[in-house]
């Protein structure tokens, strides 16, 4: 079951790269801030003081070698060639793989997004592979890096989007001996697992997501939903609940005020990438903004923030790999790859967890429109990076979802 071209991998950044980072940080030139009140500090973007403080820490206190060792110790990583087919050819895929000692463990694919990484599996991998309660399901966990992210090779040809990513991930699972598996993902990972459900439903037997994306109902196809939305907005009985209307308002607010990054990354990622590749300060600000505003009062330490940023800095493709992925997916194109996946149907069962500060949230009855919804859980806390912010809650949801799946689908039991 173990191919000879699955090669153990350890992150090992050269001294030159670390020294070069120091040089750039020492030359950093910061924009000035407007004079803003405390509650408005973030209204134009990341405040200068926050970035300056992080840069100081990066220069003087950040110990990458120690963190590198920790990551390599806790997360067993590998690389293997995967055929991404025409026109991309064979691409190296980087992934975390940890098997459970439990013989009945279910294979689980965990897909990260942007600006996340395979590190997001860090807090959930232990309770998933080795649950403390023997009655809980156990999992063999595979967490690949998206193509072009960190140590997964980027294609030189355009067009690596969801379908290709799903193809590669499915091949990876099969290569590791997992012919049937469950998939979990948020951010891009949510779309990747949907693509797996749509294109690889024979092997991907269930998808769980913490960021469900659905196409909005139209008056012609779903008049009741439109009516309920209207009534809910007006506070009338029979309409959506306050919680669901808040979801819609918050989703709209996010779309209106915070999706500039999607617009630029989805149209001119190369133009953006020059600054992100040349200036670690630029990359830090670009990523840190999301870490701060997308989470629910998560107490990020400087070490955590800088680790997440450094992973993009040291990626094989560099930061451009991550931002180009948006254009590959034709994000924002109404008929593009992302839109097609979001609109597609699948008979693969779906589990949804809704964390309070997630970016996209929809009324309950929109969630089961395209896949059979077998698990739906709401949380009063937590944000976009659920696996990192609320690992216990997410692990619990994954377990409950999988239990429901296993009752319906015997193929998930070990062969």
């Amino acid at each position: 079951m173990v191919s000879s071209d699955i090669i153990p991998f350890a992150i090992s950044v050269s001294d030159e790269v670390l020294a070069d980072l120091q040089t750039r940080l020492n030359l950093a030139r910061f924009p000035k801030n407007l004079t803003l009140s405390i509650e408005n500090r973030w209204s134009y973007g990341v405040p200068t003081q926050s970035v300056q403080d992080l840069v100081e820490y990066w220069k003087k206190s950040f110990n990458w070698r120690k963190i590198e060792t920790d990551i390599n110790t806790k997360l067993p990583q590998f690389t293997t060639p995967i055929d991404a087919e025409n026109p991309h050819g064979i691409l190296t895929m980087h992934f975390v793989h940890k098997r459970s000692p439990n013989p009945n463990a279910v294979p689980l694919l965990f897909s990260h997004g942007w600006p996340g990484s395979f590190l997001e599996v860090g807090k959930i991998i232990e309770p998933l592979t080795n649950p403390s309660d023997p009655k809980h399901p156990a999992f063999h966990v595979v967490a690949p890096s998206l193509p072009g992210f960190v140590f997964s090779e980027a294609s030189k040809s355009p067009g690596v989007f969801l379908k290709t990513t799903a193809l590669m991930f499915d091949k990876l699972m099969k290569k590791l001996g997992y012919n049937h598996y469950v998939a979990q993902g948020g951010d891009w990972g949510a779309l990747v697992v949907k693509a797996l459900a749509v294109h690889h439903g024979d092997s991907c037997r269930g998808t769980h997501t913490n960021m469900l994306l659905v196409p909005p109902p139209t008056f012609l196809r779903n008049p009741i939903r439109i009516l309920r939305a209207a009534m809910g907005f007006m506070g009338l009985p029979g309409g959506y609940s306050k919680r669901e209307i808040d979801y819609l308002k918050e989703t709209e607010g996010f779309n209106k005020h915070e999706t500039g990054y999607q617009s630029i990354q989805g149209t001119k990622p190369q133009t953006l990438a020059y600054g992100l590749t040349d200036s670690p300060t630029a990359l830090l600000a670009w990523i840190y903004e999301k870490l701060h505003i997308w989470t629910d009062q998560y107490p990020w330490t400087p070490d955590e923030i800088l680790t997440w940023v450094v992973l993009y800095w040291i990626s094989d493709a560099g930061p451009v790999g991550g931002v180009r992925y948006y254009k590959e997916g034709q994000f924002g194109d109404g008929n593009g790859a992302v839109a097609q996946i979001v609109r597609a149907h699948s008979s693969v069962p779906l589990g949804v967890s809704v964390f309070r500060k997630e970016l996209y949230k929809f009324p309950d009855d929109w969630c089961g429109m395209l896949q059979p919804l077998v698990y739906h859980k709401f949380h009063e806390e937590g944000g976009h990076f659920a696996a990192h912010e609320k690992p216990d809650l997410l692990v619990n949801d994954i377990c409950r979802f999988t239990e429901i799946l296993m009752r319906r689908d015997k193929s998930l039991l070990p062969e």
Partner: protein
Amino acid sequence: MSTISPVPFTLSISDHALASLNSKLSTVQFPNELSDAGWEYGAPLADIKRLAAHWQDGYDWRKHERDINASLPQFTADISVEGLERLNIHFVHKRSAVESAIPLLFVHGWPGSFLEVAKILPLLTAPSSEKDPSFHVVAFSLPGYGFSEAPKTKGFAAVQYAEVGHKLMQGLGYEEYVTQGGDWGYIITRKIAQIYGGRYCKASHTNMPFGLRPQLLTNPFLYLKHLLTPYTATEKAGLARFAWFRERGSGYAALQSTQPQTVGYSLNDSPVGLLAWIYEKLVTWTDGYPWTDDEIITWVSIYWFSRGGPAASLRIYYEAARTGAWDPSAQIVPRHVPIGISLFPKELFVLPKAWVHTLANVVFIGEHTKGGHFAAYERPQELVGDVRAMFRKGAMAFGVVPGKTGYRNGVRGKL
């Protein structure tokens, strides 16, 4: 009769700033690029590499600094903005030898600068033919651009930029004046016409006119005319370009209007990041203008060395979005302020001719077969030709500024 005591200004960037720029250029690193990407993903790698190398090795800032100082007489003066702050404003000011020349305020936009007046300045102040009117020209650096101070408080929007332009003209003794502008200059000159039109601002010319599709109820005659007249080939091409701009070319605006500070770190810290961000527009917004490497780097240098730093220049997008500057109602010019427009085929908003009449009393339309967004720089002869035609003897806007017809006194009446 100047009331603001302008201080002569000589552009003189410190050796320290030049050295620090050079350190950054010598450590630049580049993202990779997809094969055959062309311009599809943004500024092409080969172009940026070539420009960066030239910037470091061949480009002579001091020479261009001398040229700018020799050709553009510059000054600074303090202007107070009501309810906000007092800012030190940098501007070009050149009087014509014709005493009764028409005072003209030239307003630039992004990613332009006061440099955009360079080619039209001699043509406006000293036409070779006595049949053409002369102008006294004032071209200020918008607050936050070039060598004007940047606002420190939030809320500095179109009204405030208009106030600065108006007060500058008043302060220089030009109680009554006309304006010319494109890009943000269009929005700001419209605002000047709305607030100070009639009494002070007598007429305005723009090379980036906006308009609305005529509606039956608001512009019945135009509506019918528009309905009955098919689009010309030029108009169809223009609408296609507008669609391209909206769908593929406005990511930068979506970002700058919502979270400008976050991308500001990239522009402030990486000269190559700034170069790519601006260069993409210089090429895609012009009509095959044969930019030299020196021209591009000089335009970018104005941002790199600007008083407020490059990030400050983005905030106008945010403030304008928040105050509805792009709403049609904000662009309507009162009928008593005649408007002239020039239509260049590669402008970004190229709308059918009928539409421009919906927002203003258009007394002059100049149409051209070549030229783009930076009309004053790309097609100075044509732009000045239009401005002259709008104000010359016999034209509808002739003599709008009493006593300042643009001709030597004693020459009256129609030609």
